[in-house]
């Protein structure tokens, strides 16, 4: 290498509150960290997901308890909060799926340019957030 790299600032003992907040993540970075967050969210909520799978599928009686969870609530949890958790799961699944397809596409086609990384990240964010808004409006009965 003929040209010396320009000196970069060094970060040691990174503080989560004073240093992390000064980082400006590029769009691909947002897609990446949200991929993790959505993944861990679905992992932690997996018992609720399996409960929905169980109650919606097992019988017509359990199906009624499934649908009433979204209106009358589930145990001490009010119905609107169950809807909110379902919306979080909708977003998590959409983001994880679309960002995952981006991963697979990049692996298969070796699309590793900076430009494609940024533009495809914008597509992922627009699609996942847009679809979440549309489905969320349906879930909360706006149309």
């Amino acid at each position, binding site marked *: 290498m003929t040209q010396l790299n320009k000196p970069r600032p060094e970060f040691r003992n990174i503080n989560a509150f004073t240093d992390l907040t000064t980082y400006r993540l590029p769009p691909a970075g947002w897609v990446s960290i949200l991929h993790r967050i959505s*993944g861990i969210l679905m*992992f932690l909520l997996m*018992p609720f997901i*399996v409960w929905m*799978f169980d109650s919606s*599928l097992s019988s017509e009686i359990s*199906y009624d308890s499934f649908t009433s969870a979204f209106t009358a609530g589930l145990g001490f949890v009010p119905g609107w909060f169950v809807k909110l958790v379902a919306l979080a799961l909708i977003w998590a699944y959409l983001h994880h*799926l679309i960002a995952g397809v981006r991963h697979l596409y990049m692996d298969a086609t070796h699309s590793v340019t900076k430009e494609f990384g940024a533009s495809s990240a914008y597509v992922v964010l627009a699609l996942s957030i847009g679809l979440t808004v549309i489905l969320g409006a349906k879930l909360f009965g706006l149309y």
Partner: protein
Amino acid sequence: MAINYGSKRVVVGAHYGTRDWLAQRVTAALIALFTLIVLAKLLLTSGPIGYETWAGVFASQWMKTLTFSVLVGLFYHAWVGVRDIWMDYVKPPGIRLALHVFTIVWLVGCLGWAIQVLWRL
């Protein structure tokens, strides 16, 4: 290289290689394909979607078998992903091992429950 045997043996390593890398992508493609199949089955029915339609999606034997395979794939996919998160952020081996054990118990429990639901349909 640091000592990596006896009482110093690292028991929570990554098993470096392509096995999990490839498994993560194969299971992801399988889950994406399964999502499309379920969506297609739901969208191709006419009228409002109630219990009959929803239960009908999983009624056939091939769909039950496919769902079983996807559930096992999903379990492995979640294990690789969550393990990678622990390995990136949690450094003390004791805490990491505890989190790995929790992750396996959590995932195996959920998998067993989901298969129980599927099997008795």
